[in-house]
Structures are given as C-alpha cells and as structure tokens.
C-alpha cells in the first residue's frame, strides 16, 4: 500500500540526486538544472502532503505554485548570469571561476 512516506522518499531521492548534481557537474547550467531537480522534489513533497493530510485544502499546492514561480524567476536570472559571465570568460566551467579565494 503506497503511503505518504513513499512519496516523501521519492522526493528525498530526487533531492539527493539534485544535490549530487550540484557537486559533480562542472557546467554551470547543469548545476542549475540539478537545483531545479531539488525544487521539484520539494514540490512532490508539498503536493503529496497536501493530498494525504488535508485533501480539502490546497495549502501545499499553493506552496508548490509559489515554488514554481520562484524557480522560474531564479532560472531566468541564473541563466542571464551565466550568459554574462560567459561573455567575459568564454566559459561556463565552474572550476574556472576562482579569481577570489582564501
């Protein structure tokens, strides 16, 4: 019998995958995508919780909507940032961006 915990576990799994992506990818865009994965995981949580705990309210869905909106904004700004830094460095490789350290 599938319960809320399974949905949460799925969300956790997606979250973990996203985290790993943030660590492991060199391409800034790929890192951004991994972050999107994490946000989706959160959304899965919200919607599932909403469905299981209070099917007659839409609080979780509301939260999910806000998350989607914010994520969209984040992505657009993020991509713009990546493009502007690409214009300077001709690269989107995060390992190259260490002018400032120590």
């Amino acid at each position, binding site marked *: 019998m599938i319960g*809320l915990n399974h949905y*949460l576990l799925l*969300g956790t799994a997606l*979250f973990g995958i*996203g*985290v790993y992506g*943030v660590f492991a990818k060199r391409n*800034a865009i790929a*890192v*951004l995508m991994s*972050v999107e994965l*994490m*946000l989706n*995981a*959160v959304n899965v*949580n*919200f919607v599932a*919780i909403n469905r299981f*705990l*209070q099917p007659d309210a839409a*609080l*979780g869905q*509301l*939260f999910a909507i*806000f*998350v989607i909106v*914010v994520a969209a*904004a*984040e992505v657009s*700004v*993020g991509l713009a*940032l*990546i493009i*502007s*830094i690409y214009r*300077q*460095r001709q690269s989107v490789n*995060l390992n190259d*961006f260490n*002018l*400032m*350290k120590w």
Partner: protein
Amino acid sequence: MMYYQLLGPEIAVALLGLLVLACGLLLPAHGKNAAGYLTTIGLAAVLAAVILNFSQGAIFFAGVYQIDSYTNFFRILFLSAALLIILMSSRYTGWFGERKSEWFSFMLFATLGMMIMVGAADLITVYVGLELMTISFYILSAYLLNDRLSAEAGLKYLIIGALSSAVLLFGMSLVYACSGTTVFTGIYAALSAGPERPVLLAGMVMMIAGLGFKISAVPFHMWTPDIYQGAPTPVTAYLSVASKAAGFAVLARIFLSVFPAASLDWHPLLAVMAALTIIIGNLTALPQTNVKRMLAYSSIAQAGYILVGLVAANTYGLKGLLFYAMLYVFSNVGAFAVTAAVEVEAGNADLESFSGLSRRAPMPAAVLTICLLSLAGIPPLAGFAGKFYLFSGAIQAGYLWLAFIGLLMSMISVYYYLNVAKAMYIGTSRQEERVTLSFPVQTALWICLFATIFLGVYPGPLSELTELAVRLFIAG
C-alpha cells in the same frame, strides 16, 4: 477591523521601487540622479512613518502576516540601512552607468523582501519574501558587468543560494508534513498537540541550515568572503547588514514562536555553531590583505556574536541580538562607506590603498577606525554595549565557555582591525592630494559616526526600544 494602513510601508516601498524603475525608463540619462534623490526621500518618509507608529501592531490574514514592535524594529533597521547605503553610494553608482536607476529599484525590492520576511508569520510568505530579497541580491552582486569579480560573485551566490533555499524548502515541507499548516501559530499548536516525529527534527535542522546560509554561520559561511569581495561595495554593505539581520529576524521568530513545541533542545547545537562561527571568522580574518574580504570574515564573526543572543534566548540575549543587529548597521555601513570612497579613489580595496589615509582624509580615517573598533567591541563604542548584552545573556543562560570564547576572540579581532588603523595612520601613500567626498557620503559618515559613539556612550534609548520588541517572545 484590520489596520491595513499598517501595511503601508511595504506597499509604499513596492510602489517606490516601481516608480524608480519607471524613472529609469522615462528620464533621460542625466536625470537618472533624480532616481537617487527620489529613493532617498521616499525611504526617509517611510522610515519616519514607521518610527511614528512604532508601537502599533495588528495580525493580518488569520495570522499569516503580523505587524508588531518586533516587525517595526527590523523595518526601521532595514529602512535606515537602505537609506544610509543609498547615501554612501552616491559616487559609487557612477560605475553603474546607464543602469543606475534600476540599481536603486533593486535595492528597494530587496528591502521590500526583507520587510516581508520579518512581517510574515507563515512559511510561504517567509519563503517568498526571502526569495524576493535573495534574487535581488543575485542581480545586485553581479551588477558591475565589466568587472570579472562581480560576475563571479553573482554566479557563486546564485548557486549556493539556490542550493540552500532548496534545503530550506525541503525542511519547510517536512515541517508542513508534521503540522499540516504553514502558519506559525498553527504549527506551534499542532506540534505541541501531535506526537513527536523524527521527521520534524529533520525539517527543523534543514531550516536551520537554510537560514544559516543567510546569516553565514559556519559551516554555511564559505560563500561570504567571495561574494563580499566581488560584489559592488554598497551591495556588500547592504548584504552584510540587512540580509543578515533579516535572516536573524526570521530565525529568531521561528525559533521562539514555533520550535519550543519540539522536543529537540537546539540551544547547544546553536551554541556550538556560534562558537565555531566566532572562532573561524576571526582567525581567518587575521591574514587578509583586502579590506573588503577582511570585513567579510569579520562579518562572519559578528554573525557568531549575534547568534550568541539566540543561544541564550533570554531577555538580555534577545535584546543583545536586536541591539547588536542595529548597531552593526551603523558600524559596518560606516566602515564600508569609507572603503567605497577609497575604492573609488584607488580602484581597489587592498590594504595598501588605505595607507596614509589619515593625512589625505582625516575624517574618514577616524570614522573607519572608530567603526572597526566598535565592531571589535571596544568601549565606549556601540559594539561594547551590544556585546555586554549578548554575553550577559549567555552567562545568565549558563554558557560561560561561550562567553569566554566570544570575548577572547573579540579581543584577538582587534589585531586585524588595528592593522587597518595602522596602515591609515603611519602608512605612506603614493599620492598626496586630499580625498574629496560628496555631500551625501559625508552625511552617511557623520550619521554612522554619531550613532556608533552615541549608542555606545548612552545605550539607554535603544535598549528601551529592544525591550518593547522582545516583549512578544519573553514575558517579563
């Protein structure tokens, strides 16, 4: 009957932001300064309004939004910080060229986000306000488009920020899963009613982590130096004082109005975090040669001090938290204002650029020295009074070791602060002509100087204010 006029400040700031944005589109290039004046005047007006009805409060939307003296205190903090920074950046904004007026509007939107954060008594609103602030800061820190450091700072900030806000969100979702609501009061009720769930603790700690990023507490502090160094100096200043304060405001509100229901005793956890933050921040600041970066590490340490107040979680501690957050605005903005002026002169904020400043610009040199010493907690400057509150609270709560670490480290921190003073007072500078400061910058400097000294010599008034603000959380 709901006092919607109490939402005035938020609405006003939002409209002001839009107006400034419009100015940028409509006004010709030379008229872009108008945006600055408009912002200044508007912020001043809003600030005055907030101060005037400081004591009024109301609860909106079934507890989703809440105006009280705590909110007002932080509104004042944000607005005055924004005001000071707009003033100090009058010369600096020249580097933004065409995009000057948009810069003002982004600052305003960031301010709006913070105000919403402290006003919100509900996870969703907190989240949206927080993102409003954070995304404005992504843009602001990358705002020097020709500057490689600035762009890099923006990207780094974006990645870490997105990651940690995802963590925060996940924590929120788990808390929501345990309580079934997102309103603080509701969560509190549900938690105190319902059974203890491990997942709740997981949610709590993930929220701590997410907010810990905003206040740059160890180990979520790594981004701070890079972003502070790369971002435009006014943005750095705003980031360090306001965004940090907002993070603390939310953290304190959640911890004190929600988490008491949970069985997890989070004080030792935070105590360790605070100690680490103080130690690492101060130690790493010692060898820095770039003043902005040094101030970044010092701001990490300052975050540790403020966190002590939250660890203590008693009257003195919380008053210390608010007190320190407020004085930190003046001291730190003062320091950054001088740094910005030097940067405009010399092109960078390396320590060499400061050498001999006391001859070329006695007044800014004095201001910088005094502000830094206030950060170090040397009486009779504001920082000392704040630290006194914080550590009285800590000792009252039985965290003697924390007080020891904090005070010892704050004395060690004097070393790197004095290094700047040394460079300014006995260093020799290449060029000899006096540094010229525009009127707004001077105003900002004078305000910071006066506030830093006044709050230290006569902390009475501000402590009364904090008294009102913390009364919500701690009766008597």
